[in-house]
């Protein structure tokens, strides 16, 4: 399963609704900043990356596409 599909499934299971890959999670009001921290923890566990330092920007969690891009960057940078 690719990252985008996995994230869409995770979001659906946590928020009880479906999402589009480019949909703004925070603008919807459904996703809080506390939920953003849940996303951080999920990404680290599911994709074996460390979301540290400069990556802790809400912009990186605003859409599924943004999260996928960040995970791919982090995976590429992992030694």
């Amino acid at each position: 399963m690719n990252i985008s599909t996995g994230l869409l499934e995770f979001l659906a299971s946590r928020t009880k609704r479906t999402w589009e890959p480019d949909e703004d999670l925070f603008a919807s009001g459904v996703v809080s900043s506390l939920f953003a921290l849940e996303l951080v923890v999920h990404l680290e566990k599911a994709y074996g990356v460390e979301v540290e330092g400069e990556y802790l920007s809400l912009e990186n969690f605003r859409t599924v596409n943004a999260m996928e891009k960040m995970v791919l960057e982090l995976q590429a940078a992992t030694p």
Partner: protein
Amino acid sequence: MTDALGAARALLTDRIGDLGDEWDRAGAVPVALLRELGAAGVLCAQLSAEDGGLGLSSVENGELTAHLGTLCGSTRSVATSHGMAAWTITRIGSRKQRAAFLPRFTSGELAAVAFSERGAGSDLSAMDTRIRRDGDDVVVSGEKVWITVAAYADLIVVFGNYDNGSGDGAAAVVVPTDTPGVEIERVPDPMGCRAAGHATVRFTDVRLPADHLLGAAGASLSLLVSSALAYGRLSIAWGCVGILRGCRQEAAAHARSRTQFGKPLAEHQLVAEHLAELYVAEQVATRVSEHAARCWDDGSPDQVTAVVLAKHVAATQAAAGAARAVQVLGSAGARDGHPVARAYRDAKLMEIIEGSSEICRVLLAGAA
């Protein structure tokens, strides 16, 4: 119990023993002892071995924190802040910053985390503290209040608004307390955790090399603060387990040894109810804290809400439980210098710090 946890528990028991009440009345824990405990790794025992720590799991660190919470709430409070400072650097710092700062946490140096200001308690978006880049430096200006451990600290992780000239955002900076422009003034006579070194800290154009600015500079304030507070909240929850453990032991021992109306207090049903409710409170606080710690160890996203739940439930139970313990002991416990009187004062603070009970309820409502 692992060898590392057993050794850490034994060290705390040996060094603290029954001195918690003496330190509470004096308003200070001997700094040399705190440095010894820090160097032994027990004040941030969850720090990985790679970063110089004991590498305990969250569940193990929780049990150690509960033990410390039973012995001395002030020293537990020091461990909560010191551990939260280490966790903050782990979470939002870069690999290079981890390597630079984290070994200091197990070298005998002490650390604090600074969030609150006079106009910014529960609402940290109202912070006035400014953190700005100036060439190869970073400059910190502002005032923080009620900073636990600050009176003892060598390092303070300071949160503030990041002023980089290109928009909103927050940042955290690691500030050595011997830097020019740092002024520390103890909070006189705090209600609880009296020996935890609470202080007001003023930063007047404090200039540091830019590598002291943690890597997430310019990030979301709420995400940074939530990340940092996660450790502190779970540590508080376990500290409350320790308070309840101590209160249950003191109340039960007193109720079984003191006789009134021809039989032990424990055989009077209204007193027995207090003992039963203390047992329930301790068990509830322990189970909810264990659940959060297991989520943490498993890397489950459920940890975020579980930590808030644990903090809220354990703090509420500790405040109510400590009041019951004082009631059972009566005049025997109603004086400074008795563990249940100290627990009663310490427990009330637990409902206020690291997210008040009201803020926790707001967060939990969002998870409903």
